[in-house]
């Protein structure tokens, strides 16, 4: 039985869709952390069957738009003195900047590199986004 103890002060990102935990981990650069971090994959979940969880033994800045883009089902719990003092429910962001890159080789973003890469939400269910410049549609993190 794998045991990971609770944390006193930090952040727990729970209910991450199984398989996306590593992407959240990488985005938050947790491989470079000098504090305790646990990435738990395929944990049992009554509601989801299985889920990923990240426990961070530190308070760090989180871009909620990016987390919502990867997995709007995840929840972020802020922990102090071993207790949850705040729960953040994520949402699929309407607009994201400099998180996704356009893969259309005909898009202006493939040749000019000094401006933000902007995508707009087109379908919340599919989590599809449209490039502001070329209108190409991408589903960066499909609903599993």
């Amino acid at each position, binding site marked *: 039985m794998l045991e990971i103890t609770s944390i006193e002060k930090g952040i727990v990102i729970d209910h991450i869709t199984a398989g996306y935990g590593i992407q959240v981990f990488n985005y938050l650069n947790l491989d470079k952390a000098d504090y305790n971090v646990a990435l738990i994959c395929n944990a049992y979940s009554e509601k989801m069957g299985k889920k990923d969880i990240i426990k961070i033994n530190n308070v760090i800045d989180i871009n909620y738009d990016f987390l919502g883009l990867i997995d709007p089902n995840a929840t972020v719990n802020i922990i102090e003195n071993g207790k949850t003092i705040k729960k953040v429910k994520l949402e699929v962001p309407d607009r994201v900047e400099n998180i996704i890159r356009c893969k259309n080789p005909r*898009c*202006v973003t493939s040749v000019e590199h*000094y401006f933000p890469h902007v995508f707009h939400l087109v379908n919340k269910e599919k989590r599809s986004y449209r490039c502001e410049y*070329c*209108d*190409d549609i991408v589903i960066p993190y499909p609903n599993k």
Partner: protein
Amino acid sequence: MLKNRSLIDPSDFTREEFREIFDLGHQIVANPEKYSKSCEGKILATLFYEPSTRTRLSFETAMLRLGGQVIGFSEAASSSTAKGESIADTLRTVECYADIAAMRHPKEGAPRLASHYIHMPLINAGDGGHQHPTQTLTDILTIERLRGNVENKTYGFCGDLKFGRTVHSLIKFLSNYEGVKFILISPEELRVPEYIREEVIKKKGIPFEEVDQMEPYMGQLDFLYMTRVQRERFFNEEDYIRLKDRFILDKEKMSYARPDTYILHPLPRVNEISTEVDDDPRAQYFQQAKNGMYVRMALILKLLGIY
């Protein structure tokens, strides 16, 4: 109010704002002399990073017929782009010299990007295989002159619907009008992009069919919009050669069309419309090119706030 606005995509203006442009366009057709000094002292920059005949010449002629003047370049090699200058820097420089600009670029979204860096009105004169909103103005003025309005009609689009930017802009525009129906005729590989099918046609609830034959559908059409297979957008020459002659409109195919079905084409054509069709009174593509100049005159006047 269209003064100082940019036209990058057909969704940038409302129906009412487009109506202002078309109404002025029809007035210019009726009496072009009246407008011959309207743009005295004004300068249009035509920034063409990609070859063009009609669009560039019609923009330049439009400005000259309004009494204004024109600066610009007709290929990227003759601008500082050849030295590695960015689109943003080129446009910011041009803004120091001109009052309004029309820009064509091979990369999709280049005019949208440019519009974020300048304050003068910018017109998208075609960006890669993406959009070409002033061709749409040309098409609509032509449709209105032939049939009064755009509503309650069936439009056939034939050829390269994937890279045909004029098709994307026209579909986007027409999708805002009641009673329109689309017949999309193309090889499977050249069907309309997903964002046009899903986010424009389906979202607006427009009835449409995607088919790969012309003849059975000719009798349903009010307008047939032919397009060239866009050789310059293919990464693979073999694919172009395989697809380029898939649909050729000739006299025999015209015999399936109704007497009141008009043929439009943004031009240039290669061989997708046989020259034997040119004398048919239903072939309207050269008149369409002429209307392009008038409607661009109207657009320039509106964006400069002169009318």
